[in-house]
């Protein structure tokens, strides 16, 4: 049995390995599939659906769907970009995202995704939910206004840090990230160097007192769109 699985993404032949997800194989081939809950080193999760692709005509999450021989995957199509854009827009209106003064601006994956999809202003009404800030920890801040419920911190804490600091509580629109402690983040064993902190794609879990230390123009997405690192591999290789 061959050790490669051949399939197509947008008409390009891709070689994946058994056990890989479509996203992993695409990454190696230098094809970017947008994502928010997926994170290097963490197991597939399938929460945000920003990575939705068409597999043989049916929508699937590329971060969880294993590669299969002969499948036809659509990724960079107008329809899918539109759908993904809508998901991102919903995330914006569901929380309180004020990019203009958020310290994560320029380094934020949600903001960068919106730019990549060309979203100027969401078409959905803002919900302006009441969310709180937990600043109890001396070095780490949680601002739930900006949480997109990707669950990265939950998985990073358990799978990478060997702790169990975060969990979800509540359902539906009341769902939010909580800490595994009596009350506040200060009561947990989290440390500022934990991957649970650095894995946050938005400005919801922050290292305190860093703020705007990196000037505009030198931030992660100031010059290159999100995903361009993956696409660079392809341009270089082809």
């Amino acid at each position, binding site marked *: 049995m061959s050790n490669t699985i051949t399939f197509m993404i947008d008409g390009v032949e891709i070689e994946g390995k058994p056990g890989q997800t479509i996203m992993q194989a695409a990454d190696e081939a230098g094809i970017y599939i947008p994502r928010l809950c997926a994170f290097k080193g963490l197991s597939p999760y399938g929460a945000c659906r920003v990575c939705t692709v068409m597999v043989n005509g049916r929508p699937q999450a590329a971060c969880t769907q294993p590669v299969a021989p002969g499948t036809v995957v659509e990724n960079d199509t107008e329809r899918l970009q539109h759908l993904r854009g809508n998901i991102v827009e919903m995330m914006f209106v569901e929380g309180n995202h004020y990019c203009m*003064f958020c*310290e994560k601006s320029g380094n934020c994956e949600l903001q960068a995704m919106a730019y990549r999809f060309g979203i100027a202003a969401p078409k959905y009404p803002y919900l302006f939910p009441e969310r709180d*800030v937990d*600043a109890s920890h001396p070095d780490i801040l949680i601002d739930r206004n900006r949480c997109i419920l990707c669950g990265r911190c939950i998985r990073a804490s358990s799978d990478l840090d060997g702790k169990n600091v975060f969990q979800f509580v509540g359902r539906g629109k009341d769902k939010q990230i909580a800490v595994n402690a009596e009350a506040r983040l200060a009561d947990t064993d989290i440390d500022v160097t934990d991957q649970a902190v650095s894995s946050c794609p938005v400005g919801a879990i922050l290292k305190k*007192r860093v703020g*705007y*230390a990196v000037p*505009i123009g*030198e931030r992660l997405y100031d010059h290159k769109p999100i995903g361009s690192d993956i696409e660079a591999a392809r341009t270089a290789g082809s």
Partner: protein
Amino acid sequence: MVVAKNGLKRVVIEPVTRVEGHGKVTILLDEKNKVQQARLHIVEFRGFERFVQGRPFWEVPVLVQRLCGICPVSHHLAAAKAMDRIVGGENLTPTAEKMRRLMHYGQTLQSHALHFFHLCSPDLLFGFDADVAIRNVIGVIAKFPDLAVQGVMLRKYGQELIKATAGKKIHGTGAIPGGINKNLSIEERDGFLKDLDQMVEWGRGALKVAKDYTVEHLELAKEFAAFPSSHLSLIREDGAMDLYDGGIRAITADGEKIFDHVAPEKYNDYIAEEVRSWSYMKFPFIKSLGPEEGWYRVGPLARVNTCDFIDTPEAEAARKEFMAVTDNKPNNLSLAYHWARMIELLHSIEKIKDLLHDPDLQGTDLVVKGERRGEAVGLLEAPRGTLFHHYKVDENDQVTMANLIVSTTNNNEPMNRAVDSIARKYIDGKEITEGLLNHVEVGIRAYDPCLSCATHALGQMPLVVELVDCEGNVIDRRSK
């Protein structure tokens, strides 16, 4: 409607008039239809003080810029100065302080240029009574195209300086608690040096227009919204004008010192704010003089009056000429604001020149920190006048209290006096004439109140004037 003292009736402002960007003037008449009082209502955005509560302190200098679309850099810097003290980093490195000063002079340049060329020059070049159809920025472009272009270019130069120091022309991030997040590269510096001489030249030209106008119309200026007042500003230790830092100095209308070199964090001991039922904007006053007598002017006129000298040669020469007009006593003419503003514009350009030639701007030591504090005040001379930012921060780094006194609030009483004096002089019977409206507008404009970004973007001030009789009836209303 409320019956007030003196048998005079007044109209309570309806919330519907709280339209941002509109100045509203109410002229109250007595039984004989003489002006009893004129009031200027400006809506001040106070929501910020609540909004900032609970936010981490390092976010404030960026967040607070949302307060104002015209001079966000002023709020950025005043908040950053307060947060410097919170982190115990108020003794900035030379690079950090000079980068911030460059940002501030850049913004003073752009703000003063915008105000003078776009808003005031039509009044000065065409006369207050000229047809509104030509008395506007389009008219200036048609009749004085060179001047109009200079205004645009001076402003652009200031905005580019803001971008180079703060990262963006509006709502940048440059100033951070205890310092700055970037220095000025050699390439950036050389880009500015290339156009510098041209800016100096144009700055001189603008100053000349303002000076000539004031000198030629001195008799008018002495009649028009001229009244004695105290003056307040920051002052450098040696008495020099300093737009970025210093202690607080207040002088009387005759130039006597009321207090001097007051440390910013002591402002509360010297200044209080009075609330008046008819206005959404507070009235600050000097405590020792009381609410009746304690009001003061801030801004370019006040700063030129309070300082002992200006530490750049051309602006200092201009200051001497300016002071000579009033025999070296404080100048109390509202119309002289324009001249004072252009002295500051040239001063800012001279300062920018000095800074650009200073190698400290290429330094790499950007941030300092020291002993943490729980409360701090940051003061700045914003283009429109002294700006106060006061914060308390808890041990979790969250803001628990914010108090701001913005420049326009400091000038609240003088602007009301200006409107009142103009109304008394120019009211004609029981109607609001075009002439009255124009004069009120020119009077308010001299103070460059910050009404809203929309106001300035449109290049004109949406103004509503209402005439109210002793019964409280609005008998005439005119707007533009």
